[in-house]
């Protein structure tokens, strides 16, 4: 086999969409989003180190509509990536591979992410 046409992983466009690969790519997408969130985490820390004025502007941005929407998105990304990451760790240990179990734990990860995200934001918005 020539180097140029060796198989490349993972071709998103050649698989029929089903629970397993949809949730797998969601793990990746949320991971990339959280990498962007790491910039916000460090930016927040640096703003505190820079003094009250810098902190106030960063805090003000995240209290505003765009900032709050970003935080809401990162909350879902975080809890999905966390729950699905635990699923991956169980797979690494050799558990949970049969089809039915894998489908159930996948939707469980989605449910955990939705419940945690909505619960936390209800607690934040409630006075």
């Amino acid at each position, binding site marked *: *086999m020539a*180097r140029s046409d*060796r198989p*490349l*992983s*993972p071709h998103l466009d050649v698989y029929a969409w089903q629970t397993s690969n949809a949730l797998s790519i969601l793990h*990746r997408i949320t*991971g*990339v989003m*959280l*990498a962007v969130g*790491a*910039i916000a*985490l*460090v930016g927040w*820390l*640096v703003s*505190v*180190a820079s003094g*009250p004025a810098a*902190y*106030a502007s960063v805090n003000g941005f995240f209290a505003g509509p765009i900032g709050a929407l970003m935080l809401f998105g990162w909350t879902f990304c*975080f809890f999905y990536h*966390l729950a699905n*990451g*635990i699923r*991956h*760790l169980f797979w*690494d240990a050799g558990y949970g591979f049969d089809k039915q179990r894998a489908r159930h734990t996948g939707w469980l990860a989605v449910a955990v992410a939705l419940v945690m995200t909505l619960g*936390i934001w209800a*607690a*934040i918005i409630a006075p």
Partner: protein
Amino acid sequence: MSLQAPLARVLGLGSAKEGAGHWWAQRSTAIGMLPLTLWFAYSAMGLQHGNYEMVSAWIAEPANAIGLILLVVAVVYHSSLGLQVVIEDYLHGGKGFAAMVVTKLTHFALGVAGIYAVIVVSVGAR
């Protein structure tokens, strides 16, 4: 039967780099982040209405400062390993190389900035 040497058959076909080290680092940082991220998320909710004095005093608390530095290190390490795999899968050639360099340097800079910021806040509070 091929007359090719075994080495010639596998060269260029697989990773043969540091796969196992990457795999373990990805998992161990993931496990480390389980308590760190949940602790930080819980703490951040408590700080949401905090003013500057309250937030900087919280960061300067030694246990919190150590936790934050561990969090920053685990986050940038795990994130760097994860984005590396995404780049390896979808970007090739010059584009992949450029993306890899930018990603690695950005994560390194984020790690340095995050650790430095926590130390500055901690020292400033003394």
